[in-house]
């Protein structure tokens, strides 16, 4: 990503952003709501035009690179009561691989990829269950499986730990750990506490992007991004380290 800017009319949402994530990195983008996180995701997925700059995904522009990206949207945007089976839902992650325009039918290899994806998230054998009967944790893993069905090299997760309880979150991070052997993972979140110690590349986004290779969030970074010191969870320390808000 080089010097990327995005504007809506006069409103500059992303301003001169440059960032590089390498293969098998576990990267995190944090920032407040309204800081441009969604816009950044859309830009990566090639869903909106850049005002300036260049994005390259494994050497391809975003539109083409989309086939190599597995996207996991925010959990709460889902209608889990939709009448659909788990495997039908996961198959939808195969569309970008299915040729043709009008008649797009799932082929054997699509069914195999969907089954493999379900296995990767530890849910083999539940393909025929209706989506609505799954538990919250299972539903989250099924959404990840849908992204994995496209056999991505890069997995992007939008706010993956919001609305998820603590045991589910733990399960989630151990799943990501195993996935990191095969792909690059980027998490986008406003919840600093949601970032695992395994993250090796971190950036804070609030119109500008403040990057830090060592996955350390410094006070200065938080102040420049959030505008004030924020409560911080220290990783490797088994409890919360709370800082006082001395201004605001």
């Amino acid at each position, binding site marked *: 990503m080089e010097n990327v800017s995005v504007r809506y009319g006069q409103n500059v949402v992303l301003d001169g952003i440059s960032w590089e994530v390498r293969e098998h990195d576990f990267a995190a983008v944090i920032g407040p709501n309204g800081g441009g996180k969604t816009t950044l995701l859309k830009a990566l997925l090639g869903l909106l035009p850049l005002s300036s700059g260049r994005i390259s995904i494994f050497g391809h522009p975003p539109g083409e690179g989309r086939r190599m990206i597995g*996207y996991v949207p925010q959990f709460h*945007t889902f209608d889990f009561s939709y*009448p*659909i089976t788990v495997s039908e839902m996961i198959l939808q992650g195969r*569309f*970008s691989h299915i040729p043709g*325009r009008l008649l*797009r039918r799932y082929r054997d290899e699509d069914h195999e990829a969907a089954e493999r994806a379900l296995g990767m998230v530890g849910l083999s054998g539940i393909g025929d269950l*209706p989506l609505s009967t799954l538990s919250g944790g299972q539903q989250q893993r099924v959404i990840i499986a849908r992204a994995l069905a496209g056999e991505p090299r890069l997995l992007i997760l939008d706010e993956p730990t919001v609305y998820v309880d603590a045991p589910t979150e733990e399960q989630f991070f151990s799943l990501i750990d195993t996935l990191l052997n095969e792909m690059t993972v980027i998490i986008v979140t406003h919840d600093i506490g949601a970032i695992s110690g395994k993250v090796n590349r971190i950036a804070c986004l609030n119109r500008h992007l403040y990057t830090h290779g060592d996955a350390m969030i410094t006070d200065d970074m938080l102040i420049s991004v959030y505008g004030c010191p924020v409560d911080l969870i220290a990783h490797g320390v088994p409890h919360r380290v709370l800082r006082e808000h001395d201004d605001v």
Partner: protein
Amino acid sequence: MVCRTGYSGSMTMFEILGYGFFQNAIIAGIIAAIACGITGSFVIVRRMVATSGGISHAAFGGVGLGYFMGIDPLIGAFLFTIGAAILIWYLKTHELQETDTITGAIWATGMAVGIIFIALTPGYAPDLFSYLFGNILLVPHQDLLMMGVLLILILLLVSTLFTQLTAVTFDEEYARIMGLPVGGLTLALFILIALTVVLLISVVGIILVIALLTLPAATARLYTHTLPSMMANAVFIGIGTVLAGITLSYYFDLPSGAMIILVGAGIYASTLVGRHYTR
């Protein structure tokens, strides 16, 4: 209004119309139920009930146009529903207005246009009540043929695009990321609603279309877990609803369209209550 209301489903009328017309009513009912079950399921899962209401009421403008120009009002209705579907789609996809707002405007405008055309037409408008409230017992052969053609169009559209329509109604944003033509598929859904509305006018009338379109599908959704089984069940419930409605309408000498809807609402309500007590 002193026009023929089509409400006079008395014994004598039945004797005059004979067995053939009753057969027509049954065929019309089955065609309508199949279309409703399929399109209605998409309407329910994608929450397009209000949009469907807008498209169906716009049909009245076409009925008025039909009277005014001296052509079959159903052809006018066909033109107006397709036009309304395309207009709502255009304004929605170009984010010019909230779908809700556009729907309300088109709903009322369609009705108003119809009323103006009918006022401009010399003489009275025969069968006006049939178009508004339906009369399945008086469906002519010609309309039956049109319904059959519309049903074939609907089946072709849905069977060709089924996986993609499922994807778009389940998760539109993801479908877009997967490279599906979301705009075109959304238009296909709206056109599907327009075709179904025209098909239903003879059976329940413009005012009541929305109920037959949604009640069987809403009932099926209460106990099914996949879209194909929801559609199959909705078709089955729809056929039962229409046949029971026709029978009751004949037996009590009451308007058929309204009886069909009341049966549909009754089945929906009792399924809802039944589900509440079995959980």
